[in-house]
């Protein structure tokens, strides 16, 4: 593996604009409860959790189904309010409002079927009122980066699942987010495509210098892509452990050959095995009546 990486101009600019404090986003004692009509006890989806994200890091969150990983992402993105605790991004508090500079990619295909790829990617920029030629150049840049240049006039329905996710990623990229949140973005794709998309995500991370938080249920994916991994318990999710992987910045999918990779994934599973069984029990308890 090579040891030096060329910094792209956008990444250099991103690094240069960072404040002295390395904390990019922070969750403190965050709890998210849902009150259900007709039930006396609120449903605790998440927490309490504490998490600090450093500028430009790549962190994954893993945990059993229903543990609240998506809730954590929603809270961080400002898509949902918290019950108690605080969430800050770039020093400012978020509470149910999406701040500037955050991009989100979801598991479900959110590409707009009524627009072609070009218009999809340009969508956010146009709504933000950006000038035509600036929009065009950013869109071209993103299309080139995600390998969609030849499909610019195609409609999402003509593309495969993996390519549609690339459209969503490109659409997010053009807005130059400083924090990129991904909620199981490759969950609907087959394993091989997942591995390649993972490499592309790493490339995106390296090019933009953004902070990336990836939610995934794939231990391999988390172990391969991240510098840190947060392991969550079954619902209500709390962090069991946040570990460091120690991988170099220029890693790619071939890292799976590294002996430490196997140790990492077995450690993750040892933490999660019990939690996963507990989560299964939780989901079947609801079906009994």
């Amino acid at each position, binding site marked *: 593996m090579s040891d030096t990486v060329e910094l792209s101009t956008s990444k250099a600019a991103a690094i240069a604009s960072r404040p002295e404090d390395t904390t990019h986003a922070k969750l403190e004692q965050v709890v998210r409860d849902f009150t259900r009509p007709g039930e006396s006890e609120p449903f605790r989806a998440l927490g309490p959790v504490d998490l600090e994200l450093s500028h430009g890091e790549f962190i994954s969150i893993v945990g059993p189904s229903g543990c609240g990983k998506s809730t954590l992402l929603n809270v961080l993105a400002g898509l949902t309010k918290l019950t108690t605790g605080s969430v800050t991004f770039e020093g400012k508090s978020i509470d149910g409002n999406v701040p500037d500079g955050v991009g989100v990619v979801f598991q479900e295909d959110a590409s707009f079927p009524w627009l072609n790829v070009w218009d999809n990617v340009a969508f956010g920029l146009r*709504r933000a009122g950006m000038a035509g030629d600036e929009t065009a150049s950013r869109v071209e840049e993103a299309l080139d980066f995600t390998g969609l240049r030849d499909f610019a006039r195609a409609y999402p329905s003509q593309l495969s699942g993996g390519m549609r996710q690339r459209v969503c990623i490109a659409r997010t990229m053009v807005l130059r987010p400083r924090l990129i949140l991904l909620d199981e973005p490759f969950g609907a794709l087959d394993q091989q495509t997942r591995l390649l998309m993972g490499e592309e995500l790493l490339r995106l991370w390296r090019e933009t210098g953004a902070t990336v938080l990836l939610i995934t249920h794939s231990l391999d994916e988390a172990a391969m892509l991240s510098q840190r991994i947060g392991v969550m318990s079954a619902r209500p999710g709390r962090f069991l452990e946040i570990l460091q992987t120690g991988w170099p910045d220029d890693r790619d999918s071939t890292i799976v050959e590294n002996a430490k990779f196997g140790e990492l994934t077995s450690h993750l599973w040892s933490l999660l095995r019990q939690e996963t069984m507990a989560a299964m029990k939780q989901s079947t308890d609801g079906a009994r009546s």
Partner: protein
Amino acid sequence: MSLAGWIRLIIIAGSVLALEVACRTGAVPVLTMIPPSEMASSLWKLLISGRVNGDIVFSLTNVISTILLSVLGGFVIGAALHAVPRLRHALDPLLSAYYAVPIFVFYPLLIVMMGIGPPSLITMGAMFGVVAMIINTLIGLDRVPAAMMKTSAVMQLGPLRSLLFVRIPAASLHLVAGAKLAIAYSIIGIVAGEFILATAGVGKRIAFAYNDFDNQMMYGLLLLLLTFTITVNLALSHLENRLRKRWGQ
């Protein structure tokens, strides 16, 4: 054309031909029905003579007004209900039971309230079509994928721009289906109203022609109506299919 298409063509052409033969040979008495070819020539003569132009304009104006009212009105009401879940929840049983009631039963009531003429006709037609549009608007807005709604939130679009740029386009298949139904119902409502009781219009002309034993006029106009509604329906279906194709359905 596919095999199914050819079979369909043969069935339609065959039926028309069979009807033609049956009428010409007297198997179907001439007082009951005139041959299709005569219907066509009668319609042609009618159109160039201009005798029924006033009625055609009358009906067409009513139909267009009704369509605008039921499609736009239905959309606005549907979108408004979608924004007030409590009201929608309470009205849901009424909406699903609406077409169980023979809506036409209200026509006499409308006549006494508004008199015979365009207002009662258009109201009747709109009453017929509007709920189909409301229901489809509600379903369409319901089915906007959550990931799209969240994406519009992440792009900080706000409620109005989210509606215009994301929710309406995302619901467009259902909105078009609803409009198709509303349009069909609007045409049916106007023609049926004119037929039953009206001062003018194609429906009224057909009814009067029946009463006067004027089969030429009656069947000529029936053919006009048939052609018109089928053309409109096919055109709308074509639009709908093109939209579906783009969406990959």
